């Protein structure tokens, strides 16, 4: 920029609050956050919101179309599936699985990734080599095939899905953290801390980590959308959450058999996936724009 802008005193608030204000100005991102919030509320308050029991079968309502189509019923707004279960209620309960798995996997993976990435980037040497090799090997497998293999070995179940997804997901934050750490550890304020007598722990946690969190948070949110798709894919393949528990992936999979006669069975859970993933992606892009100085201004 110009040399004039260097001299004016910045407003008297913290960097974080300024970033947050930038983010709030981004309308699209704010809309996405609201969509995400709606989904979160759905997961928490599912029993209160859902009009029906998601597992209640009713063969008389088998493949009942959505309300606005002939033969529909306003009590079952989005229609019913092959076993006569209410699709809306199942989507609401299914959000629990998707969001739970998305959040848990990302938190787990980010935690592990930060530890490994910080160690690799800060200590370099053999630590970096070992972690780097593990990362390379894990990256070598296609993600989905890897997860399918693991699920086949461990058997289905919620905990196993989380493990299968987190097992490889940590590689992404790890690489981000390592790269940022390599850059930040060379900065003078890190050297200053060492000159003052600070140890490795202090430098990694207090000096480096706070300065690299923005890109990590941004990457993690983007990846959360990915994890949700992966979970849906596993469920679609029958390796995910087991019936009768509702999951968006398995719902899409169930509807496949009737796709010509009853399109709504697959379409509405599919739309839910698209909407949530889109909302997370847009929000994370807004986050990136607001928090990563390389993208702002």
């Amino acid at each position: 920029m110009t040399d004039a802008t260097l001299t004016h005193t910045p407003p008297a608030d913290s960097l974080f609050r300024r970033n947050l204000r930038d983010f709030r100005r981004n309308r699209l991102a704010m809309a996405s956050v609201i969509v995400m919030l709606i989904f979160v509320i759905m997961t928490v308050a599912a029993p209160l919101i859902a009009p029906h029991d998601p597992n209640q079968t009713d063969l008389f309502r088998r493949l009942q179309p959505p309300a606005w189509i002939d033969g529909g019923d306003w009590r079952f707004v989005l229609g019913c599936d092959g076993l006569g279960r209410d699709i809306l209620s199942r989507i609401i309960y299914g959000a629990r699985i998707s969001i739970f798995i998305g959040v848990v996997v990302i938190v787990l993976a980010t935690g592990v990734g930060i530890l490994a990435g910080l160690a690799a980037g800060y200590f370099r040497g053999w630590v970096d080599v070992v972690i780097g090799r593990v990362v390379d090997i894990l990256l070598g497998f296609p993600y989905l095939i890897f997860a399918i293999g693991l699920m086949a070995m461990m058997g289905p179940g919620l905990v196993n899905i989380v493990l299968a997804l987190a097992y490889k997901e940590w590689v992404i934050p790890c690489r981000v953290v390592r790269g940022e750490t390599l850059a930040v550890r060379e900065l003078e304020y890190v050297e200053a801390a060492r000159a003052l007598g600070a140890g490795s722990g202090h430098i990694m946690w207090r000096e480096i980590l706070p300065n690299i969190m923005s890109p990590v948070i941004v990457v993690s949110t983007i990846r959360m959308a990915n994890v949700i798709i992966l979970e849906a894919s596993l469920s679609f393949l029958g390796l995910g959450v087991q019936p009768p528990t509702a999951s968006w992936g398995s719902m899409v999979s169930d509807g496949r058999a009737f796709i010509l006669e009853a399109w709504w069975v697959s379409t509405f859970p599919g739309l839910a996936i698209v909407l949530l993933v889109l909302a997370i992606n847009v929000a994370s892009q807004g986050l990136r724009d607001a928090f990563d100085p390389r993208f702002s201004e």
Partner: protein
Amino acid sequence: MSLLQVTNLSKQYEGRLSLAQRLTGGRKTVVRAVSDVSLHVNKGEVLGLIGESGCGKSTLGRAILRLHEPTEGKVEFDGTDVTALSPPALKAIRRRMQIIFQDPYASLNPRRTVAEIVGLPLALHGIASGEEARAITTQVLKRVGLQPDQIDRYPHQFSGGQRQRIGIARALVSNPEFIVCDEPVSALDVSIQAQIIALLLELKQELGLTYLFISHDISVIGYLSDRVAVMYLGEIVETGPVASVLDNPRHPYTQSLLSAVPEIGAKRAKGRVRLQGDLPSPLNPPSGCKFHTRCPLAIPICQTLVPLTQAVGAEHHAACHRLHEGLNLLEGAQ
């Protein structure tokens, strides 16, 4: 009495080899950033270390503090061999040896408040905590010319000169005896530069500090140093009392460095030497005297034989083969 004694200090960096290079028998590239440097700093004085970019002056400053581990040689501080200290002992001595950095932007953690940045040494060394630490921090900030109500602000809310004051406060808070000033005013505007220089000199008087002042600016070094050391490609080529070195430079590099500085006001009394060419790469330094590739006085022996450091006056030393001829580029030119 010398507070700091550096003996034959060297620092080299080895380039990393890729697997392919290792398989094909490639040799490691070695950069000798500092080679075989000896110097001392007396208690209460300012030793000005001058040289151009890439000459190794910053590396030397960091090697003395063991921020970069020296490859060879010894650093003694107040009788203690710093190079042999264990990590806890090193941490303890860092209370007494501090550093001020060049870049007032990169040297402060953007996510910490001034109170946290300046108070860090107090916490690390268990000097003070809580309210007491805050009181000490406020006091030091006041001393370097900042307002006490600015203590909870973040670095980006300050100008370059103010940030440099924060950096100085951080170095001072643990009550050190010796400070490496690594180009502390080079990034600042002229009027701010003068404020910081004045502050550093005041603090030195008041607190009885000893400085190793690193700079590429001869005017600054000439103004505030007691003694000067001139560095070229990792070696010290001339050292001595400031008046003696500046008025009667003996090494041809010092002579050309002095003549290159643009002067204000009075017309240049002496002639002007123009060095030809660029600084050679430290990856592949010249043989013999490292300055021979650019030296207007070079003779064949300079290409093969490393010149020894000789006394040329009271405490004034230089390393050049042609010292005894008493040549001065500045008088010969014009």
